[in-house]
């Protein structure tokens, strides 16, 4: 691979006149995809597989919602129900949401945004996809071979002593998948440090890059801890080593410490890249520079660091000491500050901007509203006294769906719509895209808002039967889920049909700033014909003369004029 592309490199500029050579058609055949070292192709590989896991998780969700339409357990047995929400959680969190923006969109645009030909370690990049595939394969096997019923959190001693099924296999799958995240993190961090084009200073970087950088930090420093933790659980199951076994004096709560040491930061793996997408899209569609660039940039890093010191807020109702609870509660409030900084800065960016509501912007607006609710309810939960009441109820379920689905999935879809023309070279139907955005927004709220009320009234999570008086809210929620599902379907049809009959997209359909909009759509295999020289800031929307910034060499500018 490397040798072929090395010989191609000089001829790529020779090909310049021939606009038809792009990363999609420079090579054909299944092997050219499965062994590709091109970050753009690897991004697409991730796109396909994360979509598959989204569907798997979605099936779980559908069954859960159908079951919950009636108070009795008529569709699923208790055991099957447990397996369904486990499948839903594992697929959605580990195999869809965590890789979504970083591995799909990040892989595709990160090197281009900083003016690089590829990530620093293309082979590791491919290896990370294979780790993901092996991990996903093992988890899928565990599901098919009988399912796992521990919940995505694998709490001990349930997972070590009582749970049935292929828990160890699933654990190992998540373990292997962890390395895909670690490799991506190592790769992105090095790429951002070492591969920036001349003139691309830190404060000229798009904020998406800052967000990806902060995410990489969490991936590198957090993921190994969950990896070793899950390995210990597997060892406990197989060899009964006693570390989490209360019968021998082991402490199951230690598992929670170690698990949340990763998994709270992991919720920031799941949202910070979305923040990055927001900054790009909001700046573009307000035609304004992001208000307070450096605040937004550093708040990403602050979130990444603070995210590591709040994990105990998941353990207020366990045997954790009251003192520790107070410390964690206090620290959790702190993290709301950098998060709020971002929201305020985006709002300030909109203020007096020339805002236009194309479909990516519609998704971005949805994100702002939904994430705000999700974040604020997080503060209810970080208050120890209220959490005693709300812990393990549907309030928590609603909270994290507002941040993860209302926040991150909206951000992911927003980014997908924003960069779709770049990735595929095609435009999609605006009408359909807007329809899907509105359906998803409405369906989402109808699904999850009732769950706040349910939780407040005392409906515990992870039960398949419930008292009659909760039924009306559950039915509302299921109805919302149906709308939500239809929204996703419309979106899917919209994007797929764009591949078939979408209009050709120019290099810069949105009139956006940034290096990725100055090259062809879809990009050529090496992105740039020659390393660009950056002389402009990110988001230089207000300066007319930089509308078509002129980098150091003529060729890149040439791409813009086509």
């Amino acid at each position: 691979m490397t040798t072929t592309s090395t010989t191609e490199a000089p001829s790529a500029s020779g090909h310049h006149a021939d606009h038809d050579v792009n990363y999609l058609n420079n090579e054909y055949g299944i092997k050219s995809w499965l062994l590709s070292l091109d970050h753009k192709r690897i991004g697409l590989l991730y796109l396909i597989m994360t979509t598959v896991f989204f569907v798997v998780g979605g099936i779980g969700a559908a069954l859960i919602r159908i079951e919950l339409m009636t108070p009795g357990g008529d569709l699923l047995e208790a055991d099957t129900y447990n397996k369904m929400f486990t499948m839903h959680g594992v697929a959605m969190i580990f195999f869809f949401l965590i890789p979504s923006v970083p591995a799909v969109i990040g892989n595709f645009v990160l090197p281009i945004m900083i003016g690089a030909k590829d990530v620093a370690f293309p082979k590791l990049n491919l290896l990370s996809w294979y780790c993901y595939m092996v991990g996903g394969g093992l988890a899928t096997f565990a599901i098919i071979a009988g399912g796992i019923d521990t919940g995505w959190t694998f709490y001990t001693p349930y997972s070590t002593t009582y749970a049935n099924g292929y828990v160890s296999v699933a654990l190992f799958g998540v373990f292997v998948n962890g390395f895909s995240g670690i490799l991506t993190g190592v790769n992105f961090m090095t790429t951002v440090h070492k591969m920036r084009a001349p003139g691309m200073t830190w404060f000229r970087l798009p904020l998406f890059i800052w967000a990806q950088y902060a995410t990489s930090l969490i991936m590198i420093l957090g993921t190994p801890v969950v990896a070793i933790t899950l390995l210990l659980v597997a060892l406990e199951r197989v060899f009964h080593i006693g570390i989490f076994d209360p019968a021998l004096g082991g402490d199951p709560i230690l598992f929670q410490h170690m698990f949340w040491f990763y998994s709270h930061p992991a919720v920031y793996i799941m949202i910070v890249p979305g923040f990055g997408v927001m900054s790009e899209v909001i700046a573009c569609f307000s035609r304004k520079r992001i208000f307070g660039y450096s605040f937004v940039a550093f708040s990403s890093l602050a979130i990444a660091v603070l995210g590591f010191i709040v994990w105990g807020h998941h353990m207020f109702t366990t045997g954790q000491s009251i003192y520790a609870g107070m410390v964690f509660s206090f620290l959790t409030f702190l993290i709301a500050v950098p998060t709020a900084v971002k929201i305020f800065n985006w709002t300030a960016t909109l203020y007096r901007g020339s805002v236009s509501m194309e479909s990516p912007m519609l998704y971005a607006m949805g994100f702002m509203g939904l994430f705000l609710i999700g974040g604020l309810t997080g503060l209810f939960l970080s208050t120890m006294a209220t959490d005693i009441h709300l812990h393990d109820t549907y309030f928590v379920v609603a909270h994290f769906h507002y941040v993860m689905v209302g926040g991150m999935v909206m951000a992911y879809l927003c980014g997908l719509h924003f960069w779709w023309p770049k990735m595929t070279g095609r435009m999609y139907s605006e009408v359909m895209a807007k329809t899907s955005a509105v359906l998803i927004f409405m369906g989402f709220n109808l699904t999850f808002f009732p769950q706040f009320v349910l939780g407040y009234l005392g409906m515990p999570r992870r039960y398949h039967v419930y008292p009659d008086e909760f039924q009306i809210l559950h039915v509302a929620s299921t109805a919302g889920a149906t709308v939500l599902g239809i929204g996703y379907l419309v979106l899917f049809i919209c994007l797929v049909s764009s591949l078939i009959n979408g209009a050709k997209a120019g290099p810069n359909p949105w009139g956006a700033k940034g290096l990725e909009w100055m090259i062809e759509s879809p990009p050529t295999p090496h992105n740039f014909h020659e390393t660009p020289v950056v002389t402009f800031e990110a988001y230089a929307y207000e300066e007319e003369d930089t509308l078509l910034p002129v980098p150091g060499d003529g060729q890149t500018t040439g791409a813009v004029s086509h």
Partner: protein
Amino acid sequence: MSSHSENPALQHHFDDLKQQYEAANMGMWAFLAQEIMFFGGLFSGYTVYRYKYLAAFIEGSNHLPIFWGALNTVVLIASSFTVAMAVRAAQLGRAKSLFNWIISTMVLGVAFLGIKSIEYADKYHHGLIPGANFTYDSPMAGQLKIFFSFYFVMTGMHALHMIIGIGLMIWLIPKIRRGAFTAEYYSPIENFGLYWHFVDIVWIFLFPLLYLIGREPWIQL
């Protein structure tokens, strides 16, 4: 801007060897940060139980032979030295001596694993391996089992890293013999060295934490 045909070791997506070298170095350090946290999870679990069950940990530690542990520390530190010399030989472009230093590192690595397996076998005979053969009889047996679980998981993970390191050397040796590494391009050697030093550092902590707890003092102060 340098053209790409300069040095065959230069990969297409880098501008020059300096950039490629720095990226490799930084990537390796980021990976090592990951490794620190990986072992860190074990160390923090160890800390919790050592705090909770100090008496059992003392009793367990006294079942570990200081002699073998100390000898292995010496062996591993020596291998850290040889691998440092290997990197130096690579920096100086001395292929022959690079080869020799890598071979000595490998020999020391294998010696370490040999000593470790003597210890493991000994534990097996004494019924001190949780999950395989654990027959310890004492009121504190459960807590001792936890100590030995940590002993085996931590040293086992460490040994696994050594085995991977030896595998990496086996992969590097043919390249060294082919002369793939020069004074301009030796990142794989250097990164391997960093990895090996890291494994050494883990052991530097494992040795006192596992072998040296609460020994009967010979010298009273």
